[in-house]
């Protein structure tokens, strides 16, 4: 089971976790991740997406994760629009019977989401100027270590 939400309004990770579906019978582990805007030198962040493709691309990444690990449910909530330092940008939650599958799938989904989901960031510097964020080579290396063609995820 997979849920993907592109959210133009504030994201509350604790609500995501509180409402994350679990089975009392066989959910033994929920791994989750939240990414936040860091304020170093920036006064705001703006995120743009490709409506339809962004959701489809993230769903394909979750399906890839499901084929690799026995996960029960995975959920991705990604902000778009304008954000401030300290604001949550993205939340990923994964449940499984056992912790290793939940951890691996959660990290895999984040790594792929960074390089394969159509989302683009601009930062506003302290002087009020907007700059597009360049894609990071480090992120591509992290995605590649999972051994999959990253842009076909």
């Amino acid at each position, binding site marked *: 089971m997979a849920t993907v939400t592109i959210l133009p309004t504030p994201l509350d990770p604790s609500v995501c976790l509180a409402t994350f579906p679990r089975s009392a019978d066989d959910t033994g582990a929920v791994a989750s991740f939240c990414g936040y805007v860091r304020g170093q030198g920036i006064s705001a962040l703006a995120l743009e997406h490709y409506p339809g493709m962004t959701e489809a691309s993230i769903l394909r990444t979750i399906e890839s994760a499901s084929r690799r690990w026995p996960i029960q449910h995975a959920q991705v909530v990604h902000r778009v629009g304008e954000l401030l330092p300290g604001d949550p940008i993205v939340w990923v939650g994964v449940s499984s019977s056992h912790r290793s599958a939940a951890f691996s799938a959660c990290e895999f989904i984040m790594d792929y989401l960074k390089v394969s989901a159509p989302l*683009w960031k601009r930062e506003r510097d302290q002087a009020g100027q907007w700059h597009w964020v360049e*894609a990071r080579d480090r992120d591509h290396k992290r995605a590649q270590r999972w051994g999959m063609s990253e842009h076909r995820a």
Partner: protein
Amino acid sequence: MKVLVFAQLRELLGSNSIELPDGDCPANVAALRLLLAERLGDAFAEALADPNVFCAVDQRVVDDEHGLSPTQEIAFFPPMTGG
């Protein structure tokens, strides 16, 4: 046919899409890149020539040899920077 553009390409173009006459459908993505570069000025042509600019057809990233038909949803965009 309609071509969507995002992020830096959208800003360069000043619009989020380009409308081409239906008769103008190029054979593949490489031909579409050339057609758009010719019509849309140097700055946009240069951005589009960047090998890191992706093309998606029907919401999947494809390579330059991918064949096109007029009813498809086509988009160009720079490397993703989400998450």
